[in-house]
């Protein structure tokens, strides 16, 4: 039942075999432990500083569609929630790689549908700012890494902040002068919460363009408000009882104010962009 075998050759072979048995799995472990994984789960939460500024064109003065040369003195906005999405805004879709060769095109009913998609970032604390006074810092927002393509802008009501009282109950106030060949006035335009509601009854501007960017680190979101789009279709000459050289508060029931409100609801008037923090790492 038993058989003795042992020789120096067998002893050496045993030692070699045992050594290999121990060493090779360890080598295998080292190989397997050095995998190609990224060392972390997908995505990352980021801090998004938020700044509001006015479009340079509006700051310098501009001419609207009715030929009025407009100079702005004050632009107060009650800024509410800002949310950033992965869905592309209307008008920005990736062109086909090879038109006519890549199959049927996706057809949109005019003017197309905006699908916000997943929310990637947000700033939820309201604040009233005067964008003509220079870039205004809003409270920090937060988000996650990803490709930001669109955003929504909400008017906060009631307004919050040290300038809130200056709004006089409105959510936006614009003061300036408009001049044409035969008319020059100092105007005041404002819009209340009820006047900026969307079709769902929310004071929300959806589908705002976010300059396409892949956010991979902390940074700052810049909201650029463009009042030139608010005032582009305002024909100040159609305001009743307007007199050259006299200041005028545009009547919400009249056509010029309605054109202003339509301008307020243009998504293009609220542009978003992102600047990564120089020292932040992805």
């Amino acid at each position, binding site marked *: *039942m*038993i*058989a*003795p*075998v*042992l*020789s120096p*050759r*067998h*002893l050496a*072979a*045993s030692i*070699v*075999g*045992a050594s*290999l*048995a*121990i060493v*090779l*799995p*360890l*080598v*295998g*472990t080292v*190989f*397997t*432990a050095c*995998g*190609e*994984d*990224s*060392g*972390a*789960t*997908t*995505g*990352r*939460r980021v801090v998004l500083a938020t700044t509001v500024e006015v479009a340079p064109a509006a700051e310098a003065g501009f001419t609207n569609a009715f030929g009025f040369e407009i100079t702005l003195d004050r632009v107060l906005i009650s800024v509410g*929630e800002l*949310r950033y999405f992965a869905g592309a805004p209307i008008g920005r879709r990736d062109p086909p790689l090879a038109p006519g060769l890549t199959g049927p095109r996706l057809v949109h009913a005019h003017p197309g549908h905006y699908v916000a998609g997943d*929310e990637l*970032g*947000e700033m*939820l604390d309201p604040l009233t700012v005067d964008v003509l006074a220079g870039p205004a810092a809003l409270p920090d927002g*937060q*988000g*996650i890494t990803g490709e930001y393509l669109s955003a929504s802008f909400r008017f906060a009501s009631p307004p919050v902040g040290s300038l809130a009282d200056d709004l006089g109950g409105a959510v936006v106030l614009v003061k300036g002068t408009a001049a044409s060949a035969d008319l020059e006035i100092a105007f005041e335009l404002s819009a209340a919460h009820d006047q900026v509601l969307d079709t769902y009854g929310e004071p929300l501007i959806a589908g705002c363009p976010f300059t396409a960017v892949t956010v991979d680190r902390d940074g700052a979101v810049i909201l650029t408000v463009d009042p030139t789009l608010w005032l582009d279709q305002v024909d100040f000459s159609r305001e009743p009882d307007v007199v050259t050289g006299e200041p005028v508060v545009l009547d919400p029931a009249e056509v010029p104010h309605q054109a202003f409100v339509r301008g307020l609801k243009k998504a293009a008037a609220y542009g978003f962009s992102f600047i990564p923090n120089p020292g932040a790492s992805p």
Partner: protein
Amino acid sequence: MTRRTAVFLGLALAVVLATALLGPARAQSNGSPEGVVMPSLVIRAEPPWPATESGIRDVVVLLEVVVGVDGDVASAEVAEGVGEPFDAIALETVKEWRFEPARAAGRPVAARIRVPLRFVPTEAPRTEGTVSPVNVDVAPALATAEIEPEPRSKDGGSIPAATTGEPAPPPAPVEVLVVGRAPARTAGAVRRDRAVLEAAPHHTASDLMLAVPGTFVTQHSGDGKAHQIFFRGFDAVHGQDLEIWVGGAPVNQVSNVHGQGYADLHFVMPEVVERIESLSGPYSPDQGDFAVAGSMCFLLGYPEPGFTLRTSLGSFGARRVFLAYHPEAQPAASFAAFEANQSDGFGVGRASRRASGIVQWVRPVGDDAALTVSAASFAGRFGSAGVVRFDDLESGRVERFDSYDTNQGGYSSRTQLVASLEGSDGAYRYALAPYLVFTDLTLRHNYTGFLDDPVDGDSTQQQNDATTAGFRAHLERTLTLLSSYDSVEIGVASRHDAIDQAQRNVRGTTPNVSSTTIDARVHATTVSGYLDAKLHPIPRLLLRGGARWDAVGFVVQDHTREGGQRSSQGARFGPRVTADVAVAPGLHAIASYGQGYRSPQARSLGDGERAPFTRVWATEGGVRHRGRALEVAGSAFYAQLSDDVVFLETVSRNEPVPSTERRGAVVDFVAQPTPWFTSAIGLTYTRAAFREASSTYDRGALVPFVPEVVLRSDLAARPRLAELLGRDLVGTAGFGATWVHRRPIPFGEFGDDVALLDARVTLRLNEIEVGIESFNLLDREWNDGEFVYASNFEPNAAPSLIPVRHFTAGAPRTVFGTVTLYL
């Protein structure tokens, strides 16, 4: 297959081949090398049966002894032990044996041989050739022998052989069956006996799994819901990646509404778990559904003879009663036990109560078979605090142990009946085990507050009632194929699950249902067959493996839609093989490869769809050494899944994700140098990553929630302190320490490390024992679970949709005082 996988497989194969080819071909089953004469026994002493032990069957301890040139036993150690006091007596007895020394070329030489020592019960007649159902490789053990290097005198000459006189005739050969441990199936296989399991205190049977290397368990939703199990790089959640059996019945539930493979072990008291056998990966053909990361088998028993009455009082209003009875003349597997447990919980909404009972009886059937019958029942109700946002904790809005919604929690019950017939008939061994299981689960939870529904909230109620009937059977036959101790096993298994399940959204704190998302009746049938061969193609090389076939069929009656009945079926084939090389006595190099599967959620299948199994390819290689007092194992593994699931908080269940992989290594160390000291340490390192990308997960990103490093140490000392009142005063001091490092959670973050110490001290004076147990002795602040997702716990508020960190609080220090009477 990736390059790294190929490298790993190659290395593992190299281990096997190298050790097979380079090792000495020393095991000769018949005859001796030319010119060699083996030692022959001259004087034999029979080992006395220990006075402290009872028994009706012979016990055999296999020793490895070195016979010197003088014929004396120069040294001896236990090769296949059965535990104390048998091992110690065997070692003492064999020292009295005398041999005619081995001779090489006519000269006496030292030889290492294996000899069996047989203990015969004093009260029982000697039964020659008694067959035990325990699986042990006897023949290879007896065939192994080595010649020690020939001793030399100072001048280099041989020491002359001692004169032994006229040798006595050798004893008549006896048929010997060694009762001991079966050889490990894989390099990563783990066995944890009662000595280790009892080192630290444990609340539940799930907690016992902590003693298995690579395992970490948490309980994020109340003391009554199934634990969340992390095992060797897998977030098995409630059991989806870990096949669990208790007392012969499967614990994993097919297509449970809360999670595939849901496995609730609350019906088992920790005291009645005799042993946990853990098998890594799908490397054995008898591993079935859910054996993705591995399998765990809980073997039940209670060795304390007579009646046991244990009462415990502890922190936070905890009360527990444990009753048990074990007939003295019966094996430990025959017992009855009962537990009643309740607690106010360590924080808001955490009260729980449960009761369970288990009876198991083993009766011999004829000479060569045994019938085991068991019944278990459990019912429990529990509260759950749910999650807390970190930012709310930091702002002081909530306390650490608060709850946003105290209506969370649930109810669960389980009743199971098992009968198991095991035996042998000549060259055959067989087993047949039918079972019947009834389970019931009701859960209510709210992970997201008022995120989806700002008015009514996001409370979700899940219900799952299942009846499971099935059986396992196998027939093994010893054959002479490549050696005289080869064997082939054929197994058949089947189970049928009839499940009623529902998931509903519930309004606020009311029981009113606002909508029903799942309402279904599911019938799931699984039929499996496997072939498992054990071959010895060359000495010292053991090849084990075969293949497994599984077919799963589903019928789903979906009550949420008209004509919602649909059916589907799928089949899966998986080869599995293990190569085991005996490098040296007690040292084995083992490499394994296997394919396994996880069945799909039935309700996710379309009519006529071919059931899409999650397939797993796994390989493992490593070494194991088992000596008399020390057992060490080290292994590395790689596993690849065709697809996976990850817990998604917003729907309160696991959702499909792309293909994933696991790489890791495990070191296991168990020392029992004396009968009164036990130490076990397991260290596991794993990396779980995505192999493919999706809209949510990047290729190469880590799989969330899987801890990378798990370290566990169990240590206990049970010294006899003194004699008092004519009785032994025995003390016990033990602890279990757990360290969990780097738990990846979503969005590139890692959860806090966990470091816990549980300890117990007891004093026993025969019939009475007093003890103190403490969990989280150092009162470490730790998080049971950590998650990153969007939530809103303020009704009617504009919600943030950006993910934030949440946690479920781990228990603070809890202390129990225990008094036990043994009657």
